[in-house]
């Protein structure tokens, strides 16, 4: 038996529905082929994970919760959480106005800012002093 055939029969093998002869061949292949044995193990673990999730029980009070949710509904099967158009528009408008106000305050605060004047101001004559034109001290000492 080759790998392709073995993997094709794996579901039936796992389900125990394979005829005796093919089952023996699959088992022999699984013992000799590491890749197929790993795949078999992977499927086994996946089935186990799915079974575990499947057998999980829901909250014992779920039925009561659902019935309470239905009791809360207004007669006439209105939407569960009715949100009026006015509420939706109002919410959007408040968000937009808040954003605009934040931007406006930011701009105003930015304009109010004045850069601090430097304390150690450089004298005017020093500004025109050209360092490159100075004679090198080395020339005087040598």
């Amino acid at each position, binding site marked *: 038996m080759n790998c392709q055939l073995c993997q094709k029969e794996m579901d039936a093998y796992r389900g125990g529905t394979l005829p005796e002869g093919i089952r023996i061949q699959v088992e022999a292949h699984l013992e000799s082929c590491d890749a197929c044995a790993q*795949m078999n193990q992977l499927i086994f673990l996946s089935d186990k994970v799915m079974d575990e*999730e499947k057998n999980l029980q829901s909250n014992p009070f*779920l039925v009561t919760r659902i019935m309470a949710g239905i009791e809360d509904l207004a007669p006439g099967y209105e939407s569960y959480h009715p949100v009026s158009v006015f509420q939706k528009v109002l919410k959007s408008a408040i968000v937009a106005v808040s954003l605009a106000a934040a931007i406006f305050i930011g701009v105003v605060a930015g304009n109010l800012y004045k850069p601090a004047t430097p304390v150690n101001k450089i004298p005017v004559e020093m500004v025109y002093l050209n360092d490159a034109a100075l004679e090198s001290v080395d020339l005087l000492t040598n």
Partner: protein
Amino acid sequence: MTDNDIIAQILQGDRNLYRKLVEKYQPMVFRTCMGFLHNKDDSDDLTQEIFIQAYQTLSGFKGDAGFSTWIYRIAVNASLNKTRKSSKSLLVQRFEMVFGNSGKQEYSFPIPDSENPENILILDEHRELVQRALESLPENQRTAIVLSKYDDLSQRQIAQIMKTSEGAVEALIQRAKANLREKLSALQKKKKK
């Protein structure tokens, strides 16, 4: 009293009869939600939403198919919508993980006494892989495999829920299984590296 009789009486105003339908179908709706969401609390909440939504739209139930088929359709659509929304908020979740402020509490599966610690660890690691592999499947394949594996539905029932042919469902399940193996194998290799 059949489901249709109960529904007729509910529509006439006997709201309390809905409890019978909820008690009967709540476990299967919860299982379907689990298959898509893999989280107990989320599945509980979604099951509640589904039954309330079903109640609100009960007048739209025509009775052509059974109530179970109808509620399954609602459950599948709601679960798919929820998973789409969750994938959108993935960025937010990652952000929360980075800053260690994930408000969502993970449910830990009950551990059987017979299991040894090594097996539990292997299963825990594998759970994440299976969930990721299932989530990466195309929606129709995921629906078919969840209804088949989690709810043990026949191909005929799945075909009714998905409004398709039995042959198409069989093909979808086969492709889903093949994809699942491929993705699991790839994810495991990636994890080993």
